């Protein structure tokens, strides 16, 4: 659906060059929910704005559906002919991609109806057609009773629903979500993420979602790209990235969304919960889809005769697949402990030794 190849975007402000996006290539499949995560300033906002040409990349190629665009001299051109896109073509491209924002960006002086009708006006649709389409959209986001309300009368979650209806008005196949839940409370965040997932399933909508919260990625995305300093430093299935983060920044993001992240604090504080005696081993075990069903803990305590003292444990469900994490202290004969670790590794459990007693 979307293919980004070697996109660069540099801003220069008063002699300061900011390389917002550097050599980014991504492939986003049709019907996918694709997450892009990074801290503020990582370039994710710029990258997503390159997709609907709110920002025109300095160089690189973008394919959206059938349309291939190559960037030349700060202009988007047809890759085949090299001719720059006309205003009209650019407008049509933008209409084919919906976008929602952190602060909703609704027109305050327009009713919910008028906000949703905005992209439909001046497109040759009759009043009746527009009104019917808006009602359809209101039903889609479950806001039928707010037709005549003003944005100021709505809660944050409701405003974002209006924004989603507006973004989908011209039936785009792609929805870009720029931190759409970052200004919402946890309940509203959950309901908006559920709505996005439903839209993805019902309409086959491809969603590109940028966020700085790993919890959002965990809840909804299938694939994720991690951005840092304008580059994509890690990319893959959300499950794999959670199970085996490679880069330091990815590890930090994963930890931020995991109940096990408390271990670092416990270790720093030298909490009695993690205090080890000589010969003990403090380990972190990760049970991925290959090993999650197995009764590994009881197996090792029986087989090797060691005591397993569980400190922290969590089981996450990532799009229906379980991912388990366990932090435990192994106590017993060192050779037996070593045997238990090998046994776990052979059972496809990831073992990370946090501290040797």
């Amino acid at each position, binding site marked *: 659906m979307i293919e980004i190849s070697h996109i660069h975007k540099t801003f220069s402000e008063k002699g300061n060059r900011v390389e917002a996006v550097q050599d980014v290539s991504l492939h986003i499949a049709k019907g996918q929910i694709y997450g892009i995560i990074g801290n503020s300033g990582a370039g994710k906002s710029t990258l997503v704005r390159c997709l609907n040409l*709110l920002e025109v990349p300095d160089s690189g190629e973008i394919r959206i559906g059938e349309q291939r665009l190559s960037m030349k001299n700060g202009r988007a051109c047809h890759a085949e002919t090299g001719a720059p896109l006309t205003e009209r073509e650019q*407008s*049509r491209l*933008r209409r084919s991609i919906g976008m929602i924002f952190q*602060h909703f*960006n609704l027109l305050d*002086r327009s009713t919910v109806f008028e906000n949703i009708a*905005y992209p439909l006006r001046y497109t040759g649709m009759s009043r009746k057609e527009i009104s019917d389409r808006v009602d359809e959209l209101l039903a889609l986001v479950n806001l039928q009773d707010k037709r005549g309300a003003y944005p100021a009368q709505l809660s944050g979650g409701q405003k974002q629903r209006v924004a989603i209806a507006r973004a989908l008005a*011209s039936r785009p196949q792609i929805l870009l979500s720029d931190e759409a839940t970052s200004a919402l409370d946890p309940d509203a965040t959950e309901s908006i993420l559920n709505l996005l997932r439903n839209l993805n399933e019902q309409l086959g909508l491809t969603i590109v979602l940028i966020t700085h919260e790993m919890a959002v990625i965990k809840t909804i995305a299938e694939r994720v790209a991690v951005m840092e300093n304008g580059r994509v430093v890690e990319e893959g299935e959300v499950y794999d990235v959670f199970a085996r983060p490679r880069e330091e920044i990815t590890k930090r993001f994963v930890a931020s969304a995991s109940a096990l992240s408390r271990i670092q604090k416990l270790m720093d504080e030298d909490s009695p919960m993690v205090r080890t005696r000589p010969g003990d081993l403090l380990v972190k075990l990760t049970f991925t889809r290959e090993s999650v069903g197995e009764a590994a803990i009881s197996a090792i305590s029986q087989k090797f005769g060691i005591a397993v003292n569980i400190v922290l444990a969590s089981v996450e469900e990532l799009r229906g697949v379980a991912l388990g994490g366990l932090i435990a202290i192994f106590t017993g004969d060192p050779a037996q402990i070593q045997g238990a670790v090998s046994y776990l590794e052979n059972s496809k459990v990831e073992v990370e030794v946090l501290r040797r007693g």
Partner: protein
Amino acid sequence: MDEWLKTVMPNVVAYKSRFLTSLQQTFQMMLWSGLIAFAIGLLLGILLTVTRKDGIRPNAIVYRLVDLVVNVFRAIPFVILLIFLIPFTRWLTGTAIGVKGALVPLVFGCVPFYTRQVEAALASVEPGKIEAARAMGSGIFGLIFRVYLHEAVPDLIRVTTITLISLIGLTTMAGAVGAGGIGSFAINYGQNQNHQDIVNVCVIILLVFVSLLQLIGNGLARRTTNHHLLSKESK
């Protein structure tokens, strides 16, 4: 009634027809210079907004040019502007006196102020709204009319009211150099002939006029802001 008026403002009654004419002249000046300044100021305010560096069609040359002209004319005191513009006014309208002669300096005196006010009103429209409209495929005219002007209506009404009130001040100054109107009536028949009642009545009329404008402006601004926002403000 007539008797009473004669006792409290004998000279106003004596110069009744001139007084009414001066009122009419003031209204004419307000109406025409107001309309023209409204159109030009709105246009220039939009032009500045659109062409500024982070605007929707940045154009440094146009922006700097308009910015410079606005600054220059704002820097010239109005009384000086009046006499400075006399040759230009004469060339354009054939006369430099009367209501017709006053229109040119009034417009020149009013437009720079109004342009800045419009620019500020449009600048208060959140950039996110513009971005959202761009993402929905709106072109430059869609952005100007459907977002900038639409969202800024209450602010635009407020700044237009302020500008009209300051325009009243300008018309009275124009009166001092031969434009007629209530200002020149107050000076020529009130101050110069030492008829204090004429000056007093002129002051009262102007006060009423200003208050009326302010009242209408506030009312319109209030009505165009959506109700819920208003109730929040008043809490």
